[in-house]
């Protein structure tokens, strides 16, 4: 009851705040604030003359508000969004405006209407106390992007103009634009006559990425069952493709001795065949609500690997469990690395008990894998067991766990990354 009531109240207050911020310019907010202060100070008209300030500001507000119905906003807009942006980075995009009027327009204010980031009641209930501050924190945490208003200096009659919106992507996911609010100020510049244009669009916000040290992925090439479909010709064709540097695991027969002699380092002939290096990048998506910051960092770590590993020469499988186990393969005529980032942008945290699905997904591919990079967000029994099984299989592993505090029994090969200091941890790999 108290939760529902306070939720309604806080929500109503935030709605009012939002609407006032849309309708009033900074000068308008200043005038409203001045009214409140002068009303408090001038409540007894025999003590101070602040009531005169109150009366004047009130009259100014009323006059400004009264002009709003007479101000039309004959403007059409079109957004030119980038394809994707990265969380934690600023970005900008263009908005094309067209003045449909036969006379020139003065200042125009553009405000984006984004999807409502306020938490629903169930999420609000997860707070310890029903406070406005908590509500505000939740709202902040759910906000994908922040786009401040932009003032366009004016458009000639029937002309087009452009405005550059400076925005900031706060977290990965989908930034949903619901529409755009276009405002024109009253003659005093205190309030705005607004019109809302529906212009629904989505912008993908990719996970934040970290710089990685130069990586030498361990492991040898593996025969790919049915992997021929990954090459450009079928069967046992040993079609010569070119020369490349030797990598551990290349058969000696393939060494191109002449080139070895010329270059001074082993060079092998490359054929279009079914022997590939194939790495798995496994992202752990299971944990409770408290693991949420660690999960975000884990997604960023996975994104860093997905983007950094050179898939010219190998395949990279991104494995994680969303609604169903997902596998995305990049490299060699498959997906681009950016597609893996897009997939990661949609990763969600799932309840801890579904971890077995991830294990099965990895085990199903174990025969084709050269090595595996595991990004975990816990270090409990099922995870230990998975790592142990993979080690027993002899699969070279790079295991990272994003944990608030390192476990006491962490083995030496486990890289523990602490949220907030992930960059340091990755530099030590």
């Amino acid at each position: 009851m108290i939760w529902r009531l306070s939720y309604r109240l806080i929500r109503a207050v935030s709605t009012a705040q939002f609407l006032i911020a849309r309708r009033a310019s900074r000068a308008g907010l200043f005038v409203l604030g001045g009214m409140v202060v002068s009303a408090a100070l001038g409540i007894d008209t025999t003590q101070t003359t602040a009531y005169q300030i109150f009366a004047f500001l009130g009259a100014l507000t009323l006059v400004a508000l009264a002009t709003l119905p007479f101000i039309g906003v004959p403007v059409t807009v079109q957004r030119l969004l980038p394809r994707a942006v990265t969380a934690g980075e600023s970005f900008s995009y263009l908005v094309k405006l067209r003045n449909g009027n036969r006379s020139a327009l003065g200042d125009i204010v553009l405000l984006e209407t984004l999807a409502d980031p306020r938490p629903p009641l169930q999420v609000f209930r997860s707070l310890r106390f029903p406070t406005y501050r908590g509500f505000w924190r939740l709202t902040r945490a759910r906000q994908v992007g922040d786009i401040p208003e932009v003032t366009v200096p004016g458009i000639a009659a029937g002309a087009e103009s452009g405005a550059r919106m400076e925005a900031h992507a706060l977290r990965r996911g989908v930034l949903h634009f619901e529409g755009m609010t276009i405002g024109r100020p009253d003659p005093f510049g205190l309030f705005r006559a607004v019109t809302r244009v529906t212009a629904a669009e989505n912008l993908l916000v990719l996970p934040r990425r970290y710089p990685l040290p130069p990586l030498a992925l361990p492991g040898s090439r593996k025969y790919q069952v049915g992997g021929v479909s990954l090459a450009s010709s079928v069967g046992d064709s040993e079609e010569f493709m070119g020369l490349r540097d030797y990598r551990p695991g290349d058969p000696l027969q393939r060494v191109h001795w002449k080139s070895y002699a010329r270059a001074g380092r082993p060079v092998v002939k490359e054929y279009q065949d079914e022997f590939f290096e194939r790495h798995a990048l496994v992202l752990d998506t299971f944990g409770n609500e408290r693991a949420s910051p660690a999960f975000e960092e884990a997604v960023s770590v996975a994104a860093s690997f997905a983007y950094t590993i050179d898939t010219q020469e190998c395949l990279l499988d991104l494995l994680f469990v969303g609604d169903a186990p997902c596998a995305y393969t990049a490299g060699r005529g498959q997906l681009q690395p950016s597609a893996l980032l897009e997939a990661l942008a949609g990763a969600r945290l799932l309840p801890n008990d579904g971890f077995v699905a991830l294990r099965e997904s990895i085990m199903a591919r174990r025969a084709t894998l050269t090595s595996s990079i595991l990004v975990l967000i816990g270090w409990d029994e099922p995870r230990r067991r998975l790592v142990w099984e993979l080690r027993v299989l002899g699969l070279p592993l790079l295991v990272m766990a994003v944990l608030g505090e390192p476990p006491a029994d962490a083995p030496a090969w486990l890289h523990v990354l602490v949220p907030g200091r992930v960059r340091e941890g990755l530099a030590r790999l």
Partner: protein
Amino acid sequence: MKTPVLFLGAVILFWGAQTGQWMVAVAAALAIEGARATTRRWEFSTSDFSRAADVCTVVVLAVGVVLYFSFGNPAAIKFLFQWLAVMLLPLALLQAWGTAADIELSVLARSLRRVRNIRPTRFNVGYPYAAVWMLGASAANAVNSSGPVFYAGLVTLAAWALWSNRPRGSLPLAWPVLLGVAVFAGYAGHVGLNTLQLWLEGNVPEWLAGGGERTDPYESRTDLGRIGEIKGSSAIVLRVRPEGGMARPLLLHRASYDDYVGSSWVARSRAFAVIPRSGAASWRLQDAPGGTSGIVIDDNAPRGNPVLSLPSGATRIDGLSAVELRHNPLGAVQAELGPGPFRYIVRYETQRDGQGAPGEMDLRLPRVEVRVIEEVARSLGLRSLPPEEAVARISSHFLQEFRYALYQPQRPAGQTALAYFLLGSHEGHCEYFATATVLLLRAAGVPARYATGFSVQEFSARENAYVVRQRHAHAWARAWVNGRWIEIDTTPPDWLVAETAGDSAWTALADLWSWLRYRWGRTTEEMDRTDGAILVTSVALILAAWFAWRMMRGREGASRKQAAPAGPRSAYPGADSEFYAVESRLAILGSARPASEAFSEWLERIARGGTPGLDVEAAREALRLHYRYRFDPQGIALQEREELRLLSARIVAGLREAEAAGARSSAG
């Protein structure tokens, strides 16, 4: 939003005009507007601003506390607001003399600094600071001396600010017309508000008089009928210093009432009349050649317009700086005075009383109590006695048969509190005794009234004066005997001992605190007003100088480097080119140049579109010169510079003319 040149200075001088503190105003205005006269700037970081804000907060809090303890609440708030802007000077000076165009909102309070914000709100101190000065000017409340000057100043300054921030592209005539409407409505509105409050004060006195320890000359609610213990507060309300000897206990009368309704005494003879002044700060209450005894009374009216505490037979009041003094036929004297502590000297003659003769109300018995009163009067045989003897018999009856008690037990159903007191319990507090005495006197045919006030009897060696506490509040009867009003206090004399019994160790501490507050109040009051201003200003200046030295030390080097790009003139070579005026003029006409477009592309685009009044050839030539002025490492010759100026002026003039012509034709 930056304030226009001289705007802040004008607001500060307006504050000076309203408060009369010209010295402070001129100094502050020069300190702030002086920054515009030079391009020297210092580089202050966000943490410097935070430190300045902290200093301001500490100063405001400290001054607030001192003001609260010396003047009490409404006055303290008024003073605080009046001087608030002066206390915020460090912050404003940092903004004025620093290179930063605006500061983060979070520097203002520590709680805001803890919140990590993705897009911190930034603001220029200018307008909010001007608003604080304006509120300070309003707190000076110079409306009596200067009439509508405050409103005129407010409107002028606000119009200045609004004009410099008006949005581009609105109808030129709309602005002044709408402002005129707002000014008129604001004037009507504030006059209306003031009239409404005065009407309410005049017609709903109880609304303003209710609550607190204030004496209401119209009605006195008694505690008759209240069950349980009554506890009086030990707070000191009055200090009484006799000039010669003084009879103890002395009753200080505040108000009398003549009608008993329910459990309240009400004054039916309500009308207050103005007492004519006999000197600058003295009033004559009776036509008598002055009193033999005199006392000095220190009082405090937290909400203004107090009822004075006067001994019986008061002849004149001196040394009271009130606007007006009024009295009612029942002897209550009310002063028209602002809130806060005040002092007055009373001369009195015990044998003389200036109150009017009794009326019909002074003999009336309330219907509810008639039966009981008549019964007691009969048993005492009051009917047949002459007034003096009736008074003596009633007094001895209460003295012998009754006991003082603060505790009241549950009384039998169907009996009024007064009846139970007279016939049942025979114990109660002063209100019972006074009420019963008044009603019995009336039953005996002696006109009588219920009087309230204080009993002066506790002498404080520390203060060398009598102190009167809240619990010394007392009620007694006044009777008309032998053509004059005499005071009859039938409450058993041990009542004070009973009242004092509840004193705790805290009382001594509270007394000391009260005395210190009183001493401080007296000191500040005795200090001349200009002395105070000089003291406050010099302390503020020393603080500001120290703070400025702390802030500016070691930052000068940075400032020289930083000041150059920050100054408006030398931001980049050619920044003062007149071609920018052409650009902004065209932007107003709706041909704004997006940041991504070069000037030449933009000009060609406009030229193709055809803007009325634009001399394209001249504009191209001006642009060529502008480019050279901006980017030619050799610079341009003085003659070419002059040509750029003339060309730009001509283009702007042409655009204006065409616009005016267009407006005329569309109006026609």
